[in-house]
């Protein structure tokens, strides 16, 4: 492997992973803030408006982090992946430019109004500004997903004489079936992050015994949204996404399940360590025939294993891909379990006094971040060795004029910069949470 290629890959993986910690909360919180704002308008209750302002402050800090770590993503297509950009710009330039034109302007203009304009806008205007921020952040997610979905499952293009791809059908690009499953699955994952963060902060206040009126609202909204979307995450969206992979990326399906040998009635591996050298799973705990059923709705269906694919078409990092997928699915299952129990207690009116459950909600906070990250790793590692599935290999797409030393220089720069940003972010959010939703706010937002 050319070393510049390796550093470029680590560069992109690191910056995108760090970046996506922020938009997932932005996109997940935005609809929940609209819910809180709507409840506030309906019930004419100042408690809700305080809650909106509180989450607005957290949202604002989070949004700034998302913006400053997001600009490098758009730049990196050109700086580190210029051959890919030249090859694919005629198609995905559409969606990336549309994201800037439709989503970023909407989001940034109305966030300013939402955060600083409550008095000038009045309650209805303020509600509309919250809706606009919600729309902007979800549109942004849409265009990014369409872009990624095209790389996973390229449609609507023609090959030009110089070898590049050019747009043939805009509607085929935007209506790519892969994109719609992936969008639903991804946005649902973001709402789970928003819901668990909100429930977690609420649980913290209830356990602390401060800001309890707010805490109850946060837990209630968080648990209800968490229940709906953690189920939606599994079915139909996760299931639909999985069947897209089975239909269009058979090698990826085999690799995420570590199915080395094609078989009739393939088992579903719950736990176990893939041993790629010997092409088997060590210490497997399996459910017989379950993979065949989940993929094709038939217990004895044939499932293609990695042996059906030439090794140079295998995803390169099968072990990491397998773990990413299993961590995502495992955590998703845990979220459903937590939310079902919490929602049951809420329905029975016992949740706010069930300290053990509040502790679980509080400590759940990091896990949706891990699940979302693992999900994206599954998508991106699963696509390897392709950068654009079936059209361009990752090894062909990086900037060949930029030496490994230069990329390493900026990788180290980003590592240092993001360490500082991460510490600042945690410090500021922790302080906002400590200060709570009620009472005097400093000169800050």
């Amino acid at each position, binding site marked *: 492997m050319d070393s510049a290629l390796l550093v470029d890959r680590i560069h992109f993986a690191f910056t995108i992973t760090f970046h996506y910690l922020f938009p997932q909360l932005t996109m997940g919180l935005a609809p929940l803030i609209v819910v809180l704002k709507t409840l506030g308008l309906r019930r004419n209750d100042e408690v809700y408006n305080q809650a909106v302002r509180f989450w607005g402050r957290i949202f*604002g*800090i989070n949004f*700034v982090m998302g*913006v*400053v770590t997001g*600009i*490098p993503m*758009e*730049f990196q*297509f*050109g*700086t*580190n992946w*210029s*051959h890919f*950009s*030249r090859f*694919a*710009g*005629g198609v995905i*330039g*559409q969606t*990336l*430019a*549309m*994201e*800037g*034109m*439709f989503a*970023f*302007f*909407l989001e*940034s*203009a*109305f966030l*300013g*109004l939402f*955060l*600083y*304009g*409550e*008095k*000038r806008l009045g309650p209805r205007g303020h509600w509309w500004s919250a809706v606009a921020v919600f729309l902007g952040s979800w549109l942004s997610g849409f265009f990014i997903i369409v872009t990624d979905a095209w790389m996973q499952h390229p449609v609507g293009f023609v090959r*030009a004489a110089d070898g590049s791809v*050019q*747009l043939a059908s805009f509607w085929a690009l935007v209506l790519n079936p892969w994109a719609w499953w992936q969008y639903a699955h991804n946005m649902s994952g973001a709402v789970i992050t928003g819901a668990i963060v909100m429930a977690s902060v609420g649980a913290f206040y209830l356990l602390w015994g401060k800001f309890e009126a707010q805490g109850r609202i946060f837990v209630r909204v968080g648990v209800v949204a968490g229940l709906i979307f953690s189920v939606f995450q599994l079915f139909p969206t996760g299931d639909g996404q999985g069947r897209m992979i089975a239909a269009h990326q058979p090698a990826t399906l085999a690799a995420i399940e570590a199915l080395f040998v094609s078989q009739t009635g393939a088992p579903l591996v719950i736990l176990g360590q893939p041993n790629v050298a010997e092409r088997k799973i060590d210490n497997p705990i399996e459910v017989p025939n379950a993979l065949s059923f989940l993929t094709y709705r038939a217990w004895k269906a044939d499932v293609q294993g990695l042996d059906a694919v030439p090794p140079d078409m295998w995803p390169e990092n099968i072990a990491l891909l397998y773990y990413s997928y299993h961590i995502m699915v495992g955590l998703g299952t845990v979220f459903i379990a937590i939310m079902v129990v919490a929602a049951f207690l809420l329905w029975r009116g016992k949740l706010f006094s069930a300290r053990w459950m509040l502790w679980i909600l509080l400590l759940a906070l990091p896990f949706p971040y891990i699940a979302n990250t693992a999900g994206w790793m599954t998508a991106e590692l699963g696509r390897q060795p392709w950068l654009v599935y079936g059209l361009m290999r990752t090894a062909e797409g990086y*900037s060949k*004029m*930029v030496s490994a030393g*230069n990329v390493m220089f*900026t990788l180290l*720069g980003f590592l240092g*910069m993001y360490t500082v*940003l991460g510490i*600042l972010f945690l410090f*500021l959010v922790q*302080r906002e949470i400590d200060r709570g939703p009620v009472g005097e706010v*400093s*000169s800050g*937002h």
Partner: protein
Amino acid sequence: METLWLMIVAGMLVAYVVLDGFDLGAGAIYLGAGKTSEERRKILRAIGPVWDGNEVWLVAAGGTLYFAFPLLYASSFSGFYLPLMMVLWLLMLRGIGIELRAHMENPVWVGFFDLIFCASSVLLAIFFGAALGNVVRGVPLGADGYFFEPLWTNFRVGANPGILDWYTVLTGVIALVTLTAHGSLYIAVKTDGALNQRTRGIATWAWPVQVVLTVVGVVATCYVQPTVLDNFEHHAVGLLIPVVVFGSLGVMIYAIRKGSDKLAFVASSFYIVGMLGGAAFALYPVVLPASTDPAHRSLTIYNTAAGRHGLTVGLTWWIPAVILALGYFVLLFRMFRGKVRLEGEGY
């Protein structure tokens, strides 16, 4: 079609420089003009609700460049790898400086973020100017349309230039002075009292420097890239550009003297439009000249553009999108119009 998209991308970049330019300039004068904590908060408040939206013009222009001219985007972004990454770091530091300062109470940290905000604004203005200088001067493009430029070589223009040479340093300084005046005038519009007087004073002081640098810059450009005069010879419409540039400089000093800050700010905006428009007009249809074998290797709008069908489709969404975006900006600036006050929520 290619020409139309060049005008669109160039127009968006100009919008970025005019808009983000005033908050970069406000950052550059921040420590000098804001003597007290209140004055500094007023400056932050004047740009606070709009700086992020202004910066979106850069991101959107970058996205549109990628869409319309993929090869130009691929070649220039990888070739200018190091300075672009530094611009990214500066943009991050600056955003953090503006937003997080408001969350800090301890004067030690407030002072630290003040310095970060001011220094990153100054450096960004210089970097953007130097970037434009690089594009006008030309870069060592290979036959495949790619290049890589080190940060500096021997500070001379020629076949093997670096990002920084005497010419690009000059354009960086021109950008800094221009944006300093531009930002000062914006803050003058948005404030009253001592801060208004002081920022107006900075613009008055910057004006003669700006006039001299404009002349020096034009002469230096003709020396470095003699082909820039060709388009002016063949298309008389180009003569409007020096009229706009020097006319707006004249209006600027007249308005400052008269105490009409708004008019002066508008004139400064026209000056920026004239300078950048002039550069784009002079290079057209080239968008990135090659320093060796320019006749064959230069990147033009024709050899870098995306497919015709894609460009046509693009127009159908770009036009409504830009109308919406302009609508948001009108709404945003109207909501925060008038002189800034310190009461209420915010910085």
